[in-house]
């Protein structure tokens, strides 16, 4: 499978370094290595979800307890979580670090991913959610840690878009 295991490890290492100890996740192709790494790590609590919106509640519970968390999901999962993001994370000022695989953008072969790709950034902008891209190994760690820090200091959701350039090796 041409999902980059090297860059997945890099992202996982950055999550650990910025203190994330709970990950909620719903599998998708680009996220397989990240989920396996969390599964094998005894310091990480991995919560496998039925639907991404649950992750908003789980991260809020973790935050109340003083535990740093992140959500791992596809952009379609972000679409499925929007009510929770607005009526919990925004309403109650909950920091949410959302790692979103940016499917359906340039280079996408799967027709079913393309519509979600079109609306991902416009929706993030409409919701006022700050976002950045992880698109090269050199800057990935720093950007991810900066996103985590902003989520914590601003008490709001922040999105990190995992792009094809970083996640996929053709």
């Amino acid at each position, binding site marked *: 499978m041409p999902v980059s295991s090297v860059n997945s490890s890099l992202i996982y290492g950055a999550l650990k370094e910025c203190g994330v100890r*709970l990950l909620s996740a719903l599998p998708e192709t680009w996220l397989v290595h990240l989920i396996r790494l969390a599964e094998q790590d005894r310091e990480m609590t991995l919560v496998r979800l*039925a639907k991404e919106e649950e992750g*908003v*509640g*789980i991260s809020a*519970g973790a935050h109340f307890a*003083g535990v740093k968390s992140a959500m791992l999901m596809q952009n379609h999962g972000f679409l499925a979580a929007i009510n929770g993001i607005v*009526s*919990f994370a925004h309403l109650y000022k909950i920091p949410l670090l959302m790692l979103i695989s940016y499917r359906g953008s340039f280079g996408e072969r799967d027709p079913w991913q393309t519509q979600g790709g079109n609306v991902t950034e416009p929706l993030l902008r409409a919701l006022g959610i700050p976002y950045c891209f992880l698109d090269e190994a050199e800057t990935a760690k720093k950007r991810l840690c900066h996103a985590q820090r902003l989520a914590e200091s601003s008490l709001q959701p922040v999105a990190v878009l995992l792009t094809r350039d970083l996640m996929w090796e053709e």
Partner: protein
Amino acid sequence: MLRVDCLRAIYPELEKSLVVTIMGALPAELQSLGHRANFFYLQHAMGLSSSTGLGLALCMPEQKVIVLDGDGSLLMNLGSLSTMARYRPRNLVHIVFDNESLLSVGGFPTATGTGTDLEGIARAAGIPRVATVRDLESFKAAVIGGVQANELTTIIAKVEATGPAAYVTGLTLLENRFQFSRHARSLRTPEDRLSLSKGNKKVTQRRRVR
């Protein structure tokens, strides 16, 4: 059985636990009995009270967590039952007040009024301890049993579809949220505190370097 009587009957248990509720009539009733720093009222995001309780229970295994859910809210997030059952936190008691109605928005009937069996769904999802109760004595016994059992428990409490006249209280959402969070963090075990202080120390050192 009235929900407010149920809340009164288990109030001593609620005072000793971290409590997460749904929106609307339930938090207004609970606040009428007395607000506490360990009560968090999720006044929107229907369905996510149980997920919030799960996150808390996983991060604070030494604390009892009680979720006060409703049939309308749970029906919006049935997957939460399978996620809770998957991780089975022993310190989580999930109470579902089933009035077969979306009371807060005009009393329209939910699917539990037309035959959907939440106890059966919870059991089939893999929740290890499940019960349906219809009177105050059995309700109180089921909740105390759930707290003492040290096993994930879902209790379906059949209640009448009545509630208070108004739902907005004097407690603002953010005041409640920060008070609850501060309280929960003050309960962290020494081991938790150690890992938290390590993180803080790192930040302090970095600041000093700059």
